């Protein structure tokens, strides 16, 4: 039953409702992806305006979470979904939570971008942010692609990417610690970068959760906390 379709219900309206939560989750994913991208760019380019925008638009992501959750609750109440339908609805309610948290982390990054831009000065640590940022962006985008196609193989590969990100995170921490030791005056500044790096690592974890949920929808197997 690896081929996922959410069509062909005797009740046509049910097809549409499932399709709608799926589409809206994709939209939310797209929005969050954009938020993250802008937040990372705001750091590198010291772009306060872009950072402000990210902070402002976080509200949109929150609203999406609430709306999609509500749609899921309605489906459960109206349709009593079973089997793959039930798994999809449960997955979506969990996935919106992860996406919302990614939105939160993007907002935190944007906040730090504001502080860093206000202070001006050295761009120490930005290379680490850029590297890790690229990996995390790619992981999130792969996770969303895997969801769009219900591709278990792609989801499993994406989960593996999280190990790489954890590795890069540790390397970045070491680099940042070195900067602080070299120049204690930079500590407060580098601390801001450190929080950004931390947020990026957390986003990797949320993308991983998303992938685990995809495996659950398609295979009916819960692979959380297995390593």
């Amino acid at each position, binding site marked *: 039953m690896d081929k996922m379709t959410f069509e062909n*219900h005797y009740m046509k309206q049910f097809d549409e409702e499932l399709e709608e939560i799926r589409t809206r989750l994709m939209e939310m994913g797209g929005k969050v992806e954009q938020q993250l991208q802008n937040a990372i760019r705001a750091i590198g380019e010291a772009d306060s305006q872009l950072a402000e925008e990210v902070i402002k638009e976080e509200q949109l992501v929150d609203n999406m979470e609430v709306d999609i959750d509500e749609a899921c609750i309605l489906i459960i109440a109206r349709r009593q979904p079973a089997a793959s339908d039930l798994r999809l609805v449960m997955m979506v309610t969990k996935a919106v939570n992860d996406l919302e948290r990614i939105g939160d982390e993007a907002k935190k990054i944007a906040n730090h971008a504001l502080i860093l831009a206000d202070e001006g000065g050295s761009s120490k640590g930005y290379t680490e942010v850029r590297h890790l940022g690229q990996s995390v962006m790619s992981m999130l985008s792969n996770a969303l692609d895997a969801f769009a196609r219900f591709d278990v193989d792609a989801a*499993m590969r994406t989960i593996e990417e999280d190990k790489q990100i954890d590795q890069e995170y540790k390397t970045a921490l070491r680099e940042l610690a070195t900067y602080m030791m070299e120049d204690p005056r930079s500590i407060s500044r580098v601390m801001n970068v450190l929080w950004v790096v931390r947020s990026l690592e957390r986003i990797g974890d949320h993308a991983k959760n998303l992938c685990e949920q995809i495996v659950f929808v398609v*295979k009916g197997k819960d692979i959380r906390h297995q390593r």
Partner: protein
Amino acid sequence: MNAIDPVMGAKAEVKQNLEVADNQVTVGSCFTDAPKMTMRNVNVFYDDKQAIHNVSVDIAKNEVIAMIGPSGCGKSTFLRSLNRMNDTVESCRVEGEICMDGENLYAPKLDVVELRARVGMVFQKPNPFPKSIYDNVAYGPKIHGLADTRVDLDEIVENSLRKASLWEEVKERLHQSGTGLSGGQQQRLCIARAIAVSPEVILMDEPCSALDPIATAKIEELIEELSQNFTIAIVTHSMQQAARVSHRTAYFHLGRLIEVNPTEQVFTMPEHELTEAYITGRFG
């Protein structure tokens, strides 16, 4: 890629074809270690028309097994062959082996009347006798000679009505007619009548389809309680009901037994595509 193994390696290939093949094999766990009833290669015909194709399954002691499937899939026919209710249908012929505690129920010398006391039945529409509530329950024990004295009989009637969660509602009017009760009460009266003769197995053929949600809830709660002492096979059109009351669920499709699995699995991760299609309300 070792990490993929726990997921990828786990599942057998599932039939993509929604047609039912002649050599359809039931997927899932049909057999149990301590079966109360065992059915092997059961075929049921109405004249030349085959209604049940080669069904093999066990019913465990004290389990509630739900049989689900679209109309005409053979689930009621199958249920009725378990206490030879089909004997009353002239054109009906049953092949294969149906045993209870290892004893073949279709053996020529088997006493069918006694069998139906051991395997009781509750029908879709409550069908109390046009007699008093007391007599409805007392009838079975009387004809089967289960009570020697009036006191014994009173006790059986009270116990049966208690087990059917009806005692409190009718104890003041035991000698009024059973047909004067509400639909839900009548159905519980029929359940009391079935359990009055101490059956080992109770067959229920859509016992709640004529009842409102509250009466249904009472019967469902009752099924849960009865499963402590009885083995229950229930045919139902309500999938939520099957999900709520049963331990295992059997899915029938066009006379074939497609899948038998623990109920929690059937409703979250069915093994066969046809089961999935049916319980999610899709055309397969």
